[in-house]
């Protein structure tokens, strides 16, 4: 019932509004707006921002997971990192935006320190923090912990016997990683990467709090379609944009699901 009320019904409404005009008549005009150059640019921005932060988050997160393998699962280091990851993965939004404004904003603590101490002006070439580029750092901030949460179980599921079998069969450390561990981890890694992509692609609050000018990514453009005075009355465009997002997310999540199922089979 929960899923029906808060996922299925809104999804169906979002899809429906993309195909109907304000009078309730069926139309393809709104959906055709998805081909508008401005909309396409927005989707492109969302794509590269999500892809970049997903890749960086996945690589850094996987490296942290690997470094944590040596720590005892019930030891203080692991439990602290696990708890922190759980919290920080959900830290996006206004709080995170404020944290970045307070540290590396124009009058941020770190910004002022770098300028006063080293004469380094991080905004010398423009105030990038409040643009799409500025979203990269805050997004990575919650992408890395999410990667740690999702990828750690896969790394832990690598059986010591695989490394030992590799050694007794004449293999080296390199053959273990490149012929056994990486291929076995690949579905989990790519699956986590897709999850991170979806996480960034659908993220709204952090961007809304940081970016006040323009609608450079899809969620912000949906907001504009719903609230902007210049675009007032274009709720159906918001529906079409949401439809576009749903299609992207559906494809990503289908891929994630297929990869997770393969990973689970291998980790039995």
């Amino acid at each position, binding site marked *: 019932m929960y899923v029906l009320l808060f996922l299925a019904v809104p999804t169906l409404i979002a899809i429906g509004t993309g195909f109907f005009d304000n009078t309730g008549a069926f139309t393809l005009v709104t959906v055709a707006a998805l081909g508008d150059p401005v909309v396409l640019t927005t989707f492109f921005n969302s794509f590269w921002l999500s892809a970049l932060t997903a890749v960086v988050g996945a690589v850094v997160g996987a490296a942290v997971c690997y470094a944590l393998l040596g720590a005892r699962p019930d030891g203080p280091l692991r439990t602290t990192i696990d708890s922190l990851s759980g919290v920080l993965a959900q830290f996006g939004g206004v709080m995170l935006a404020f944290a970045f404004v307070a540290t590396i904003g124009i009058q941020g603590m770190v910004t002022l320190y770098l300028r006063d101490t080293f004469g380094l002006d991080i905004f010398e070439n423009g105030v990038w923090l409040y643009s799409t580029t500025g979203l990269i750092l805050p997004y990575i901030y919650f992408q890395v912990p999410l990667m740690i949460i999702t990828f750690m179980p896969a790394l832990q599921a690598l*059986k010591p*016997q*695989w490394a*030992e*079998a*590799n*050694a*007794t*069969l*004449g*293999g*080296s450390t390199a*053959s273990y990683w490149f*012929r*056994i561990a990486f*291929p*076995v981890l690949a579905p989990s890694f790519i699956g986590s990467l897709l999850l991170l992509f979806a996480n960034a692609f659908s993220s709204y609050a952090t961007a809304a709090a940081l970016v006040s000018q323009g609608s450079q990514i899809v969620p912000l453009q949906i907001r504009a379609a719903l609230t902007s005075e210049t675009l007032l009355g274009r709720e159906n465009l918001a529906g079409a944009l949401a439809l576009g997002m749903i299609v992207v997310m559906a494809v990503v999540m289908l891929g994630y699901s297929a990869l997770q199922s393969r990973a689970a*089979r*291998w*980790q*039995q």
Partner: protein
Amino acid sequence: MNSQKLKVQQPTAPTRPGTVVEFVGVVKEFSGMRALDGFNLSLHAGECVALLGPSGSGKTTALRVLAGLESTDAGSITIDGIDVSALATSKRDMGMVFQSYSLFPHLSAGENVEFGLRMRKIKPAERRRRAAASLAMVGLDDHFDRFAHQLSGGQQQRVALARALVTEPRVLLLDEPLSALDAKVRVQLRDEIRRIQTELGITTLFVTHDQDEALAIADRVAVMRAGNIEQVGTPEELYSRPATPFIADFVGLSNRIDGLVRSAWAEVYGTSLALIDPSTPDGPVTVSIRPEDIEFAAEGLAATVVASSFLGSLRRTTVRLGDGTILFLQHGVRVHPRAGESVYVIFTGAPVSTEPVGPASVAQQQY
């Protein structure tokens, strides 16, 4: 697995015969605890030796030290007279089958078997031919393209065996390879491992905590306790002439009964039994008597049947003597005593071991 036909296949190629393995004074400690305490053992060329012992006795450590998966703190391990103690695992040329399923999940059965050959840079066509032959040897020639998750536990262990043998290693190491399998498959695979080992003539170290498995598969069995070997011998020697009461108790079932030794004879409940070791000093002892060396008779020690279990080809019956002592008997299935039935039992065989006890213990006995 159960539907899998057991095909008697020819081995792919004879492994190099004549490999002799020796552990000399091997010591291995984990956090100050000695897992191996001056461990000595020789494996003759082409023989299968089972390391048998309870959990924590050091048997798996001994195998892992031989494989090079654990380092030694002292002592040496030689293969054909060459010390390999400092040699990396990958250079020791050993095949190993693990207790838990260890097939690489992203590779098919055939690719798993090919893995060791690939590491040796064997050409693809030759790799495939040898992998197929090795799989045929374990009766899985039609499973080349199956993945681990498509195989039963028994089939996975067969593939692991084929993978371990395809490189024609000098020594085969088996670390409780049957313990995760169900009883019927375990016996089938046990017999198959023995057949292949005999045919190939490969020197094999088999670790198990299952005495039936050890006695059935090995040329010699080494019983381990507290990081060292308590006794090593053929299965028959271990069963009929255990060196210590621990062996008598651990290998096979024993009735431990208080008795008295006088001039190489043990008196047990008024019956004089010849001792295997005539040098046993006189005095009170606890003797170990096998269940098959106690029989029902028309007259003898009065007892009451407590329970009787059907074990397929034989039956095991528990009786209680008048003084409360419990005895186990092993006999043919045609005799079927009922619980509560009054019977008489006699001792027909010699005690397999004796252990001196304090006089207080004997004083409780009524002769």
